[in-house]
């Protein structure tokens, strides 16, 4: 007997909520208008993809892409976040491994890649696709179970840390429970940062947040959250929303890893 399907369905439903929230954030942010700075949407894109993939793993009816395709997707995401973490470490040292940076996203993407690469055949019967964690198809297992355990520990660690920071004093921008507000006088800030008048082009998106085209600044996009200046006053883009999604995914992913050991 496997873990009851209705329990897995609850977690699958949670993942669908995460996917919907992440999609909503992308729609509100409209990263396609940002040019190269669209990389600030990487977290929401990865959350959306992971949540869809996990929902499909938890409930057979929600399965979308073949396992190999998902492996490619998460291979690309892992490489992207590995690059971001490497850049962060060069700049900030070991502090870049803290939960407020890109490191947890690297762990999430790496765990997803591992799950799709390390899947072995169901112990009994034949599951459909990867789904088969529940139902009568037999439980799929993962090769290299120690790696599954280590990933689960890391995900648990980041999840409890995120939850603590969300509820604690002195929380950084990643964990703010407040609705983000537009930052005034952005053009002035740009000038202060050394932008030339010729290169600074003020934009006026619908949400009233001024963006300025500025050569070189997009290359500094090593952050793993949307800067407050881009979020406007829309509560969907509040930092805590993305962090909450990450907590939900971290707990669910740890559960899946342990179930498939």
């Amino acid at each position, binding site marked *: 007997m496997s873990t009851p399907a209705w329990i897995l369905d609850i977690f699958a439903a949670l993942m669908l909520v995460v996917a919907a929230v992440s999609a909503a954030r992308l729609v509100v942010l409209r990263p396609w208008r940002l040019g190269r700075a669209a990389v600030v949407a990487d977290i929401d894109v990865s959350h959306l993809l992971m949540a869809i993939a996990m929902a499909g793993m938890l409930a057979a009816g929600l399965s979308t892409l073949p396992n190999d395709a998902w492996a490619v997707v998460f291979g690309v995401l892992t490489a992207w976040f590995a690059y971001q973490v490497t850049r962060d470490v060069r700049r900030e040292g070991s502090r870049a491994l803290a939960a407020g940076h890109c490191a947890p996203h690297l762990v999430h993407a790496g765990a997803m890649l591992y799950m799709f690469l390390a899947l072995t055949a169901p112990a009994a019967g034949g599951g459909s696709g990867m789904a088969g964690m529940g139902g009568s198809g037999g439980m799929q297992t993962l090769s290299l179970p*120690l790696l599954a355990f280590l990933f689960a520990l890391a995900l648990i660690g980041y999840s409890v840390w995120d939850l603590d920071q969300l509820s604690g004093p002195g929380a950084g921008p990643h964990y703010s429970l407040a609705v983000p507000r537009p930052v005034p006088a952005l053009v002035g800030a740009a000038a202060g940062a050394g932008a030339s008048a010729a290169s600074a082009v003020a934009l006026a998106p619908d949400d009233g947040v001024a963006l300025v085209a500025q050569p070189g600044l997009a290359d500094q996009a090593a952050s793993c959250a949307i800067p407050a200046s881009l979020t406007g006053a829309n509560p969907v883009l509040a930092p805590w929303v993305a962090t909450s999604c990450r907590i939900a995914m971290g707990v669910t992913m740890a559960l899946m890893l342990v179930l498939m050991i």
Partner: protein
Amino acid sequence: MSEIAAAGVRPAWRSKLGTGADAASRASDARRVLQLALAGVWLLDAVLQYQSFMFTKAFGQMLAGTSAGNPGAVASPINWDARLVEHHTVVLNAIFATIQLLLALGIAWRPTVRLALGASIAWSLGVWWFGEGLGGVLAGTASPLNGAPGAVIIYALLAVLLWPADRGGKPAPFTAARAVGAPVARALWVVLWLSLAYFALLPANRAPQALNGMIAGMESGEPGWLAAIDRAAASLVAHQGLAASIVLAVALVIIAAGVFLPPPAARATLVLAVVVAAVIWVVGEAFGAILAGGATDPNSGLLLILLALVYWPAGTTSSPEHAPVSARQEGIPA
């Protein structure tokens, strides 16, 4: 292509991130970090409880097995509980797992730390009796290598020691002393480790092949490398049950006495405690059999390591940056 960024605010934002991280770091003193570690172990415990094995009748049978050797007054409620679980396995186990998940999240969420820690103490005591048969303490089968005195009672002990309160007076010499005071904390440490030393010397554990059999029995279902470690360790203590038990008991007594020593010596004994607990966890408990897919919890080794860290002597610096943070400063309501 125009490169668009948020008007130079990204560097400012990155700077803010650093400031925020620093503030969060200051606000998270050693006790809060250890509370989060406890929350993490509860979370691991919860996801283990959701495993497919726990939703079978084998779970109820496993509970019933813990009554063996216990006095009737202890065994009868265990058997009643085991029968109840066997009849309503899916619903009850789902509730058990969810309670543990909520305990983990509650400890990690600052406003609910007290509630969750208090609930975890009550839950741990219940599980210690109904789920672990008091760790075999009264049955004469308890051994430091198989989880004595019951992994779950160490959760309760940690919850007490990490309670977000501070006794007045002089600064606590270690984190465990902050809530209950140094004398009580030391007494709890001594009782635990001396009881482990006593269990190591029980007849059932000092028999020539007792340790060998216990370690070799952990091989089943484990990955090859872990099974090889178990095989090697088992052969090392083959027919050496008495000698190995004495060595283990001596180490445990030294650890017990460590909290009365000056900080440098105390640190050395705590390192010894971490090493012994790690050996117990890897060799004696095979990581709680998590890798074999049949674990109900990570077992005692991991918790003993965490407990040792709770007794780590506080720094001697008087710098405000290193001063312990009160519960209110941590954002935990009174």
